[in-house]
């Protein structure tokens, strides 16, 4: 078992370096093919008719004029998809209900949000498809709508589903509501806990819905054949999951659907679900021709998953010495038009970084007339952390304690309890706090209107199902394939782990992402799971190869396999008594494969457990312009426990990227609705994500506390980084101008109003 960083560093040759990625050149020359870059002969283009209303009953849809337009080949409605039983399936934290999912793909009885798909048209050109969409006549009965989560929870709120009874409440309510679910995690005695506190702070917060903001709109191309076989090119975070969802929603066997992994132009959780794929497949089946669908940016904002907006109240009690004795949270999350916000994650992650004997954490999953929320980087955790880490900052100030030292005093480690049951199994949090305490800039004096804020964050990280294959070519080069979409350099990290395990140069390993017919199942690239779980599969496949290489060397030397070891890329005699044999390289053994058993290649599958959580602690210096309310980021330092960096630059890149998404969430980004429930800012001009001139260089600190469950010590690195920034910036603004911001985004008008309020 690996116990500390130094042990690992001494034995690693390529793990922890930063070579150029195997898929790099196609991506800088424009040759890489993303979702929208595939075409086929005879291909049709499809366009989608979307609801202009936030909430409306669909009385009738007349497609006759559209169908009569020359060039139109087929039109589908929601009723063209098979119906599904109303049932929540899968683990509660990620439960799916296909009755909901098929209605999210395309409306049936009602349009539940502006942008909800009503119909899709396939035609010979995109222009004809667009014209046909305008010829479809829909009669709506416009219904009252609700947008805000508090409004949606009111007893007299317009109901999205007239028969929705809140789950998780005993006895079950008799009246329907927009509250899909209530959940609670509790431990200890919350009243006694607060009674024992020296200081108690309770505050309420609101956060806006924000979009993942991937630059590539959802796109796909489907070709359905008369034999019932279908091929689909799709940019997603997991083509096996696209295959499963699409087959189920269209009503076909999984074996008849082959999904090719197009390069993905960003996902951040938002491409773990399907939108256009089932439509393209159904239209292709209906027309007998390949069908391509490209969403526009407005469609992306209006109809694909943002993460939830929220209303929250958090109360925390501490002793004078900084010990947290009790914490209570109430988290109300917008699910969008269908149940399934990340509120369960939020209630679990909220207090997860701290040892707290008395906790009560309650969540509500609430539907309203917005697009259905989808996963966004550590889904749920950044939202509750904004509230919790803000309250902790207030408490630290009250008791006169450094906010990092207060966090350090209460930081969980291996063996610490959680509110939801199992104990923490890993260290790593305290080390991220210490990294900032040791940072030379942490105590640097600040100027006028400048302030410093800190915050921390927790994310579970994922394991799960992955498959990898490793093949040795006849010249000794290596091909590895996985079914895990490469969203930001995982081909490189897979190649690094294979090279390290086999003892060969990184450059001799070709690393690919295989389609659903060419490799076993891989779950999505999400939950920061790929370098961990798929990495385990790669290493296991390499170890099978090594066993085989030892066997072949033993055949070549006419000795027993136990007399052969594999070391630094060579088969060697275990000791001189075996014989005077020159070590055999991979290349030398591969050259003899025909006489030693044939092709050398193995596949390994895993359902990996043992993943370790991600912890990140960050400090930010800001300057607030008292005239405009504009907040400028002066310096941002983010420490995160990555377990073991496989590709150092891409680990740092994940941290910097997550922080900057958090900066956008904190300062600019929000879904803005008008009085009719229509999104007012469905474009990158008005939904403003951070641009280069908004930012300084972000400093990432890689803390490495290895995870013993992974052969190289990996912990997931993709998500924990987005958890702290919102609270860190709020805390810095308070430190700069003495105003406590409790609503996101902390945009200039809102900050200015807080300053002017005095």
């Amino acid at each position: 078992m690996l116990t500390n960083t130094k042990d690992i560093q001494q034995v690693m040759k390529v793990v922890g370096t930063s070579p150029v990625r195997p898929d790099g050149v196609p991506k800088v020359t424009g040759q890489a093919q993303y979702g929208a870059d595939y075409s086929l002969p005879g291909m049709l283009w499809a366009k989608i008719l979307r609801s202009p209303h936030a909430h409306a009953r669909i009385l009738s849809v007349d497609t006759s004029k559209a169908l009569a337009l020359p060039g139109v080949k087929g039109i589908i409605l929601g009723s063209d998809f098979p119906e599904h039983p109303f049932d929540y399936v899968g683990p509660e934290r990620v439960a799916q209900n296909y009755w909901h999912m098929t209605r999210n793909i395309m409306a049936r009885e009602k349009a539940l949000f502006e942008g909800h798909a009503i119909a899709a048209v396939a035609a010979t050109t995109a222009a004809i498809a667009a014209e046909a969409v305008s010829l479809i006549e829909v009669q709506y009965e416009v219904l009252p709508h609700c947008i805000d989560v508090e409004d949606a929870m009111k007893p007299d709120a317009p109901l999205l589903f007239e028969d929705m009874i809140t789950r998780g409440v005993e006895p079950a309510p008799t009246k329907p509501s927009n509250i899909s679910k209530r959940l609670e995690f509790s431990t200890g005695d919350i009243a006694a806990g607060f009674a024992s506190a020296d200081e108690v702070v309770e505050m309420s917060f609101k956060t806006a819905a924000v979009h993942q903001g991937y630059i590539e709109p959802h796109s796909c191309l489907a070709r359905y054949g008369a034999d019932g076989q279908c091929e689909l090119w799709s940019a997603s975070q997991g083509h096996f999951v696209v295959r499963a969802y699409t087959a189920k929603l269209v009503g076909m066997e999984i074996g008849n659907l082959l999904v090719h992994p197009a390069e993905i132009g960003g996902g951040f959780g938002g491409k773990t679900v399907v939108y256009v794929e089932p439509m393209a497949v159904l239209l292709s089946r209906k027309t007998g021709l390949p069908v391509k669908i490209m969403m526009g940016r407005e469609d992306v904002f209006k109809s694909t998953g943002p993460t939830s907006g929220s209303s929250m109240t958090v109360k925390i009690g501490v002793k004078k010495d900084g010990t947290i004795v009790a914490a209570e949270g109430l988290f109300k999350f917008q699910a969008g038009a269908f149940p399934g916000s990340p509120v369960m994650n939020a209630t679990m992650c909220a207090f997860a970084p701290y040892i707290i004997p008395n906790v009560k954490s309650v969540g509500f999953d609430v539907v309203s007339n917005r697009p259905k929320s989808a996963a966004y980087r550590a889904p749920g955790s950044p939202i509750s952390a904004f509230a919790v880490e803000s309250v902790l900052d207030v408490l630290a100030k009250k008791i006169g304690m450094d906010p990092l030292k207060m966090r350090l005093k209460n930081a969980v480690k291996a063996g610490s309890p959680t509110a939801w049951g199992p104990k923490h199994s890993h260290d790593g949090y305290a080390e991220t706090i210490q990294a900032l305490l040791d940072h030379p800039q942490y105590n640097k004096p600040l100027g006028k209107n400048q302030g410093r804020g800190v915050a921390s964050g927790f994310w579970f990280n994922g394991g799960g199902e992955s498959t990898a294959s490793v093949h040795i070519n006849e010249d000794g080069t290596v091909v590895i394939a996985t079914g895990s979409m490469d969203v930001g350099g995982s081909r490189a990290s897979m190649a690094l782990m294979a090279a390290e395990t086999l003892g060969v140069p990184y450059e001799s390993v070709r690393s690919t992402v295989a389609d659903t017919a060419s490799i076993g199942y891989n779950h999505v690239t999400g939950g920061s799971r790929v370098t961990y779980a798929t990495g385990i599969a790669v290493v296991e496949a390499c170890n099978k190869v090594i066993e085989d290489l030892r066997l072949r060397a033993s055949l070549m030397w006419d000795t027993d396999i136990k007399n052969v070891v594999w070391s630094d890329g060579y088969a060697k005699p275990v000791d001189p008594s075996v014989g005077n044999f020159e070590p055999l390289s991979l290349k030398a053994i591969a050259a003899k494969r025909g006489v030693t058993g044939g092709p050398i290649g193995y596949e390994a599958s895993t359902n990996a457990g043992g993943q370790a959580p991600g912890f990140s602690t960050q400090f930010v210096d800001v300057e607030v312009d008292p005239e405009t309310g504009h907040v400028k980021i002066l310096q941002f330092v983010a420490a995160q426990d990555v377990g073991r960096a496989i590709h150092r630059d891409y680990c740092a890149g994940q941290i910097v990227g997550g922080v900057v998404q958090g900066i956008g969430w904190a300062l600019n980004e929000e879904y803005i609705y008008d009085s009719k429930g229509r999104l007012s800012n469905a474009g990158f001009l008005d939904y403003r994500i951070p641009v280069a001139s908004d930012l300084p260089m972000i400093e990432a600190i890689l803390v490495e506390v290895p995870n013993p469950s992974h052969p190289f010590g990996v912990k997931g690195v993709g998500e924990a980084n987005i958890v702290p920034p919102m609270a860190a910036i709020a805390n810095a603004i308070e430190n700069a101008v003495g105003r406590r911001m409790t609503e996101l985004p902390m945009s200039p008008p809102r900050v200015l109003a807080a300053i002017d309020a005095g």
Partner: protein
Amino acid sequence: MSKHHVTTVINGDPVEFLCQPNTSLLDVLRNELNMTGTKEGCGTGDCGSCSVTLDGRLVCSCLVLGVEAQGKEIQTIEGMANGETLHVLQRKFLEHAALQCGICTPGFLIAARSLLERNNNPTEEEVRFWLAGNLCRCTGYNNIITAVLEAAREMRGA
């Protein structure tokens, strides 16, 4: 609508195409000429993914009509490398891990080259402001800025 015949030069080669008067240059490049290296991120000129140069001027090709290319010279990402030799910017983007998903990369490269043609010794702030019209959601920009500054340094021979 009848199509217009357009004669242009793309990456140094003569190119002719037919297009509707309301078709964007981006759609012509991608859907008529099969040059899909130029990406669509928004279609409204806000993200810079479709950056090309038109007679040396940096433009969003989604905001230019195909017919406007008549008699003009266009440079796209497909013309940036010289055979097997990558442009310095392309090499620096790879060496400095300046891309994660890569969808914005062609636009950034075209925009950065346009900057370095005008200013071969930009400050970090000048790079950040020149590239403010190009959105990247993955990298937080750190490595893109570094790659451009390093490319400028190498191109100056400094």
